[in-house]
């Protein structure tokens, strides 16, 4: 890539419009160009059409969708008028793509060497020793240790971050001109995300690649992109240089998006100094393996000796990466997991860990739960009213006749920002954010004093996420309910938490007030977590206090 004009356009999309068979527009005339050697970020919330744009460029639209008008130029070639056979030579060879979920994008029954080699054979005709050498070279380039042996490994033997590296190696195998990255770091932990972003950035510089980077995460945009386009309902509402974009966004939607993505401090009065729930020495060990005839048993120490205290009216955020045991701990406090060891003192009087299911029932109403996946959290065969009423019936909370229970449900729905007439609808009629509100209403129905929120905002778009957090904060002010807020997202901590506990490999490594943890972290792991957070978030956090 010697002397080439930096502003030369390599991929140009003009007036691209795509619609459903019934005429509903998905993309409403998109214009942008991708220049040689730049990272161009396409930002938007779910359903804005950003992934559809990527698929439209690759001519891989889902069945039924059709192009209404528009042109896509790859240098001088117009892609939409190419025959399919010619397009096949372009995919992978000149435009490569990496996906969000590296596990499902890799073939589980082929070694990674074979999968990378396939692309080399198809497009470059490399075989045998030459192919192998090139694969090793590529794996080395994307930072896979011991590439000579790992080449013969299967995808499941690699970690999530390594799989994404393999995906990148595959995409780069034929030295494409354009790389389309569709949310490549969304499924990864923050520390891994930072590494993958670094890798992409350095590869892009070295090879002079043009990258179309699709993401919903403003922090990632600030980290990697040269230019940004914001998509909203199938249109590009704003396009600008990243620096300009972050400082002075013009479109109101962009301003809102940016505001919601940044950490914000909620004014949280310190709660009283007494304990609502006190967990001591919680251990949850799982036995794995060992059938009838096998003596070998492996023990996974998911939670390994955790102490924590939650005060009335307080939010304790539990932070950690995937696999750290934070969700397991949450389920254990609800007694929905078998506890291996430990005490759960509630109200400073009763140890929930010693109670059996029947004796526990009166206490169930005091601790409730909200889940991450709003689509799995409701029984699709029950109306949401029935789902919310269920707790009132089983735990005998509030009025026991149907009419007044329905009144109470209507009241709850209003409290979480929905309409009473939503009661008789089924879950599939609601959006993700609305379902999360329903989940909160269901928990509130039994008047709990502690709600365990298991990543309730991770599956939501930033604007909706901000609304849900505000709702939780309002409810806390009104009713004095406590939260154990499990999350991996550091940017929301200042807005929701009083105190933060950081969890790593089943243990709590650091605990303290939120400003203390975010500003002067003591434990190396906490420092590493904060270090890995996008710069945008880090600077905003340090500006808060």
């Amino acid at each position: 890539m010697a002397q080439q004009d930096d502003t030369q356009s390599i991929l140009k999309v003009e007036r691209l419009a795509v619609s459903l068979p019934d005429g509903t527009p998905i993309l409403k005339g998109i214009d942008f160009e991708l220049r040689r050697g730049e990272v161009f970020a396409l930002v938007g919330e779910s359903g804005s059409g950003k992934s559809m744009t990527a698929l439209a460029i690759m001519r891989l639209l889902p069945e039924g969708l059709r192009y209404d008008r528009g042109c896509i130029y790859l240098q001088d070639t117009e892609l939409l008028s190419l025959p399919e056979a010619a397009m096949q030579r372009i995919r992978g060879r000149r435009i490569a793509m990496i996906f969000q979920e590296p596990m499902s994008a890799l073939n589980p029954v082929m070694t990674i060497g074979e999968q990378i080699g396939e692309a080399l054979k198809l497009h470059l005709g490399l075989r045998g020793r030459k192919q192998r050498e090139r694969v090793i070279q590529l794996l080395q380039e994307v930072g896979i240790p011991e590439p000579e042996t790992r080449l013969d490994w299967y995808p499941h033997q690699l970690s999530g971050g390594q799989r994404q590296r393999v995906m990148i190696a595959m995409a780069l195998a034929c030295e494409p001109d354009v790389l389309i990255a569709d949310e490549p770091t969304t499924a990864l932990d923050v520390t891994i995300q930072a590494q993958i972003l670094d890798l992409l950035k350095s590869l892009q510089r070295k090879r002079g690649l043009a990258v179309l980077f699709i993401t919903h995460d403003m922090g990632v945009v600030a980290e990697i992109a040269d230019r940004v386009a914001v998509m909203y309902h199938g249109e590009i509402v704003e396009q600008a240089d990243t620096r300009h974009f972050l400082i002075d966004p013009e479109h109101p939607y962009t301003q809102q998006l940016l505001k919601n993505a940044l950490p914000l401090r909620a004014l949280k009065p310190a709660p009283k100094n007494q304990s609502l729930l006190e967990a001591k020495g919680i251990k949850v060990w799982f036995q794995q393996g060992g059938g009838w005839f096998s003596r070998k048993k492996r023990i996974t120490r998911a939670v390994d000796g955790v102490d924590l205290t939650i005060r009335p009216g307080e939010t304790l955020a539990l932070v950690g990466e995937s696999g750290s045991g934070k969700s397991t701990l949450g389920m254990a406090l609800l007694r929905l997991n078998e506890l291996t060891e430990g005490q759960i003192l509630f109200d400073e009087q009763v140890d929930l860990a010693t109670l059996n299911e029947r004796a526990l029932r009166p206490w169930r109403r005091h601790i409730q739960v909200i889940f991450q996946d709003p689509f799995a959290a409701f029984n699709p065969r029950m109306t949401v009213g029935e789902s919310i009423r269920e707790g009132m019936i089983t735990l005998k909370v509030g009025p026991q006749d149907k009419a007044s229970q329905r009144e109470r449900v209507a009241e709850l729905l209003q409290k979480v920002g929905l309409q009473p007439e939503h009661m008789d609808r089924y879950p599939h009629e609601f959006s993700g954010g609305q379902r999360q509100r329903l989940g909160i209403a269901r928990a509130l129905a039994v008047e709990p004093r502690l709600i365990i929120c298991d990543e309730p905002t991770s599956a939501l778009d930033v604007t909706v996420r901000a609304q849900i957090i505000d709702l939780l904060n309002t409810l806390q002010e009104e009713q004095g309910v406590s939260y154990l807020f499990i999350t991996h997202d550091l940017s929301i901590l200042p807005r929701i938490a009083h105190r933060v506990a950081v969890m790593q490999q089943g243990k709590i490594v650091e605990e303290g007030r939120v400003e203390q943890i975010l500003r002067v972290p003591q434990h190396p792991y906490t420092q590493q977590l904060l270090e890995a957070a996008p710069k945008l978030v880090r600077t905003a956090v340090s500006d808060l206090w």
Partner: protein
Amino acid sequence: MIALLWTDVLVWLLVIMLALWGRLAMRDALVRARWQQVFASPLATISAIILITYLKLALLDSIHLRMDDGQLRSLLDLIFYHLLDASERTYSAPFATHEFVKSVVQQDGQVLQVHLPLRHVQPGMVWWDLLLAAALASLVVWLTRRGVPDFFKNGIFARSPRGVFWGTAWGVWFVLIALWLLSHHYHVFGTDKVGNDVLYQAIKSIRTGVLIGTLTTLLMLPLAIGLGVAAGYFKGWVDDIIQYLYTTLNSIPGVLLIAAAVLVMQGMLETHPDWFGSVAERADLRLLFLTLILGLTSWTGLCRLLRAETLKLSAVEYVTAARALGAGHGRILLRHIVPNLMHLVLISIVLDFSGLVLAEAVLTYVGVGVDPTMNSWGNMINAARLEMAREPMVWWTLAAAFVFMSLVVLAANLLSDRIQQVFNPRNA
């Protein structure tokens, strides 16, 4: 005098249960919308009407009366009563006026080989019969349309194409009435070796086929659902025992098990003929026993499927939420797990139906199926084995069994395809 046979009672019980369940399920707007979507397809509508016709014929054949001469006759027998007396001497081809084989007769002192004329045939009526049938079918359809003006409003056929619906209804009525009228003047499907009308046998076989297809499922369902859900939900030793049970059962070849059981049953029937009343009652018991043993060998597939799905569902968050809300096992199973399994149950019922109808034919052909005196497609095919070897060939017994059986199997398969398409959450 109404006489109750075991299978009659069970099949009517099944229909009543189905009707009640249908009424209950239809109250659920979601379920109703799903069914309406199923029948939005013309092919599914046609298939359903054909299946309902078969079911109605089977039900008509499942109300037995004891006649004055002590014989058991069903309502269907009464409708086709004229065919009971219309036996010929031997084989005759469909719509033939003379016997199929030549007989030796002495005429005017000469010995002649001639095709004798059939006794119960009045030729020359075909067009009149068809015309009359067309007129009657139109009248029936017109009357039904007048009688139920709101038919499409809320029911499961609300979205089915009207032309197709009424067209099929007319077609079915036309065929039924035409067959009935023609059977007065002809042997529509010919006669068998001893001169019995083949059409009558084929129609009587409907009950056997439908009963095997539905009763077996009825017997199998509680076992499959109960054990499958228990294994998937309680896990641990409950799961171990249930898995052990169905793995063992599955490892025994099904046909072998059925053959052994039927032979034991046959032996018992022969040593204690006094335990049972008439021949018809014995045949009926044998049919019941066959459905029982088919049910016992066929629950494992569905059970395994339900166990896997329950394992998955019991880890889904809404079940966890219910547990956090203090819901007991019973409530979780009945409100959260079983309703979300029903699409699998439904799909497997309709898929199994056609398989079971065919299984009856195969087992009877091998000789371990229903009683030889009972009308069934299997018995007809078994008889056709020798007839096909004759020269000239007697093809109509096999053809009649084939037409009647393939029609119901085809309809069931088409309908189950459509149901699977609509109810499978993966396709939604």
